[in-house]
């Protein structure tokens, strides 16, 4: 990893020096032990802040979309001949590039507006799983050596195998290496052993009765405090105004009525059909530990079963719900 970090910094420095990118989104060390936090770099000197480790959890494609659309908006009132192009660089693992592929397929920005620094990934630490493994004890110091986390808590020292606290989506990830990239740092990472059981949890869930599944859904949603962290962290959630924030008309109540929360979550889930790259960002940012992935993964499985498609894994394979084929076996498109 250290070697990758070194190469990453060199590459970032070079891209900024050669002015091939205007801004670069990556990770830097966080203020808490065993954390990394998104950072934005615009000068070559800052490149040494970059880190790449098992604590880099966010899907940075979210920021790529934000930065480029902000730039597009700023250019709207500029004469076409005076418009400036802005290139955003991003440190990207497999899921991040899947989101970028999806953005490109959904015509959010051009391929020439993003420079992808591909990095291999072997999964990131799920902070909530780590806290649970420590029985809630506060982390005072910590380090990662190979596959072992050495942690000092208020109660004493503890060793935790990295495998035990990897995020669920990482454990079963099929695409831990970049799908597309402009520069690749290091060798591709080995496949994640859990990938073959990608849908095991969903299959278990499918066996439950409708009532049991609904009960699980309502239980999970009752934890939600409507802070919208899931939506805000999601690279596929990029509507300029979310339907829950529309006021004319207002579609969803803002109170504590359970159905309002369920409607928000259900609508978000359905907007994710064929568009969720299983990056786990929504789960990792949720302050209340709502199990969103169960439902997202079920939708992902359905899309794969019906259309043989996995979101963002190929530029040539468009999202199934935003395309149609003339030889579609369903003819509703002709006889609605």
């Amino acid at each position, binding site marked *: 990893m250290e070697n990758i970090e070194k190469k990453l910094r060199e590459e970032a420095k070079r891209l900024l020096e050669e002015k091939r990118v205007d801004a670069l989104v990556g990770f830097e060390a*966080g*203020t*808490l*032990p065993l*954390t*990394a*936090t*998104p*950072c*934005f770099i615009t000068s070559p000197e800052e490149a040494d802040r970059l880190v790449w480790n098992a604590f880099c959890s*966010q899907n940075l494609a*979210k*920021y790529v979309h934000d930065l480029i659309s902000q730039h597009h908006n700023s250019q709207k009132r500029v004469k076409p001949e005076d418009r400036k192009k802005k290139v955003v660089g991003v440190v990207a693992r497999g899921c991040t590039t899947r989101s970028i592929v999806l953005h490109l397929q959904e015509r959010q920005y051009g391929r020439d507006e993003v420079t992808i620094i591909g990095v291999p990934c072997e999964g990131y630490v799920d902070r*909530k799983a780590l*806290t*649970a493994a420590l029985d*809630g004890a*506060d*982390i*005072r110091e910590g380090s990662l050596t190979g596959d072992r986390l050495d942690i000092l808590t*208020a109660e004493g020292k503890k060793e935790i195998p990295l495998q035990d606290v990897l995020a669920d989506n990482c454990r079963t990830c099929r695409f831990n290496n970049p799908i597309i990239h402009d520069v690749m740092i290091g060798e591709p990472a080995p496949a994640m052993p859990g990938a073959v059981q990608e849908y095991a949890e969903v299959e278990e869930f499918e066996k439950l009765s409708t009532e049991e599944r609904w009960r699980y859904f309502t239980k999970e949603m009752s*934890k939600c*405090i*409507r*802070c*919208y*962290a899931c*939506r*805000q*962290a999601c690279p596929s959630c990029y509507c300029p105004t979310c339907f829950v*924030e529309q006021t004319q008309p*207002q579609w969803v*109540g*803002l*109170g*504590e009525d359970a159905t309002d929360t369920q409607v928000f979550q259900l609508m978000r889930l359905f907007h994710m059909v064929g568009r969720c790259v299983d990056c786990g960002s929504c789960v*990792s*940012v949720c*302050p*209340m*530990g709502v199990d969103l992935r169960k439902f997202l993964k079920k939708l992902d499985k359905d899309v794969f079963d019906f259309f043989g498609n996995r979101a963002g894994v190929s530029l040539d394979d468009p999202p199934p719900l935003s395309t149609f084929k003339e030889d579609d076996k369903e003819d509703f498109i002709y006889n609605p």
Partner: protein
Amino acid sequence: MEKRLIKKDALTGIIGKIAQEAVVFAPVKVEDNVLFKALEKGEEPFLTYANSKNAPKNHFFPRSEVMLRYTRTAKGVEFAGGQKEAEATVLFGVRPCDARSFVLLDLLFDQEKYKDPYYIDKRQKATIVALACVHPPYATCFCTSVDGHPLSADGADVLLTDLGEEFLAEFVTPKGEKLLKYFGDVKADAAAEAKKEAVAEQAAKEIKSHIPAREVKPIMDANFDSPFWNTIHQKCIACGTCTYLCPTCHCFDITDEMKRDDGRRLRNWDSCMYPMFTKETSGHNPRPTQRERWRQRAMHKFSYYPENFNAIACVGCGRCVMYCPVNLDIRKIVTDISKL
């Protein structure tokens, strides 16, 4: 002030007895979360907690509450009151930082000029039993930087301090003294008080996180347009986690909901981190980007509140630091501002 000593294992029993006569809110373990919530019948509090994820302010200032109800009739609109009157409650196991948040919220909701009946009703009927932080639970605790102390009784009616073998119970207010009957009759001696002094000194020493919170107001006021604000917000994803878990954040939005002829007026939590927070009917937004929103959050806590109420609107609980999904650390922001 009445002071009693109680055996450590007596605490759960005391809570049980109080719960027979009043609604008791206490930390409870719900799956992986420790939540501050009303104890259901037979439910026992989780007393080895560090602190609850949600703030106890939620009891006085819930995420959503009905202000009034109305019905459209042939004769016009008929109005009815909102929430039913509050019941007597005991908030058990509030950490001193969170207890201090009530003092700060009182300044706003119960001031001479404006009285918030919804808040005040619940607040007056609640007794706060605080549990001192003999060992401050988190490395992110910074209460001593914002006028707090791990053993502070500010905002508490009763303060419990773990002295090792037993708890020292101090009945700080007349409201707290009403709970005396539950706490046995072993009066605390001078030795217990001396022990508490020592514990207090040690606890304050254990707080390792310090921020120059009291110094930043003039610097902030002079740097309203500083380029500093241009970059700090960049990684903020504009969720409301920090404000929704904060014990002192208190912004709300008022909406009407109608079903056929029946309507209710609700006040719901709102967050300065949301674009909609300041959006006006015309479509204009005076805080158009996250830059202005973050500046507002920082200024409100460390400049405007001190200006209005002579108190920093932060109790140093560290929730926003620990649970911010992108590690946007308010401690770092305050420290960086002090260097401007």
